[in-house]
């Protein structure tokens, strides 16, 4: 019981620094959503229903432009395809949980909650780095019984969820006093920089990051924001390649 509480609180604690970047981004989303012509209820509802920041940003642009509904759905889905990679990454750790936990944690699987939870799982999993033993470690009943790390994920996920909903509301109600020139949308890029850079620990990871970035620039003009997925896959392939060589 004490360990459950500790994991949950540690999850919240790990998420807190990142909220410095998430909250301004959520506020800007609220401002843009209202400016695009959505009502306050619709603007807030999108944060709860879609709950994926960068796709919500693009959605507001599409609403202003009068984009057809089907194109909007497709574009949002493609931008959020990266979450399938996160899902694959978390699946080995979550597969013992009851379905209710899986449904709940999947809803909370955002970029920011995913990265801190994935790092927590990897750091507390000594055999993880010897990747062949990953399944052996997870399937050992003794460790599984003691594993409360999904509470960490829940803490991180709920901290992010609550601040996303509240910052959307703040953006909606303070809209007029947050001018464009503050460039608060830049906090998304800064948040991701703060999440990536400290974890560039070996050459293969650096190769994965750099090639994904370069391909993202090259594929920038691809339709429906497909460039993001192409770049991510190229980065993963480069990482595997460098790892195999060394």
């Amino acid at each position, binding site marked *: 019981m004490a360990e459950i509480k500790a994991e949950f609180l540690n999850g919240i604690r790990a998420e807190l620094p990142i909220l410095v970047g998430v909250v301004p981004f959520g506020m800007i989303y609220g401002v843009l959503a209202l400016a695009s012509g959505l009502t306050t209820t619709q603007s807030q509802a999108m944060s709860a229903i*879609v709950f994926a920041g960068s796709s919500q940003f693009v959605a507001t642009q599409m609403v202003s432009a009068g984009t057809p509904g089907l194109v909007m759905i497709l574009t949002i889905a493609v931008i959020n395809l990266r979450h399938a990679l996160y899902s694959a990454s978390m*699946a080995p750790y979550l597969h013992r949980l009851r379905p209710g936990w*899986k449904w709940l944690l999947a809803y909370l699987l955002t970029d920011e909650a995913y990265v801190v939870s994935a790092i927590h799982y990897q750091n507390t999993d000594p055999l993880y780095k010897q990747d062949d033993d990953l*399944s052996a470690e997870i399937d050992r009943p003794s460790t599984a019984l003691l594993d409360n790390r999904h509470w960490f994920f829940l803490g991180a996920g709920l901290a992010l969820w609550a601040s996303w909903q509240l910052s959307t509301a703040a953006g909606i109600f303070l809209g007029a006093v947050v001018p464009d020139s503050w460039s608060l949308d830049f906090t*998304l890029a800064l948040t*991701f920089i703060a*999440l990536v850079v400290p*974890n560039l620990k070996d050459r293969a990871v650096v190769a994965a990051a750099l090639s994904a970035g370069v391909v993202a620039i090259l594929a920038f003009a691809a339709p429906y924001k497909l460039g993001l997925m192409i770049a991510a896959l190229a980065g993963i392939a480069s*990482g595997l390649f460098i790892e195999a060589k060394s």
Partner: protein
Amino acid sequence: MNIWLVFILAGLATYAIRLSFILFVDHRSMPPVLIRSLRFIPPAVLTAIIFPEILIKDGALNLSLGNTRLLAGLLAALVAWRTRSAVLSILVGMLTLWLLQWWAVR
């Protein structure tokens, strides 16, 4: 199409994507290469979002010193690398951007 229907369908699609592997795939049946690729997912995906955000300005690649977001992003990356502090990195990046913007309009 009704905007509510758009939200609900886009939300369901996003949720299905998030659930996909967690609910339906047993990792023991995943090929080893997929397991090995998992650790590259965060750096690859996040950098694929960061690079266009800071390097593309008005629809074109901009590597000049006039690209304020590039300079602010680089400084934030340096701070993140040295201090590992998310708060400090985000604050330094934002302050740098504001300072450069203020400088540019003077």
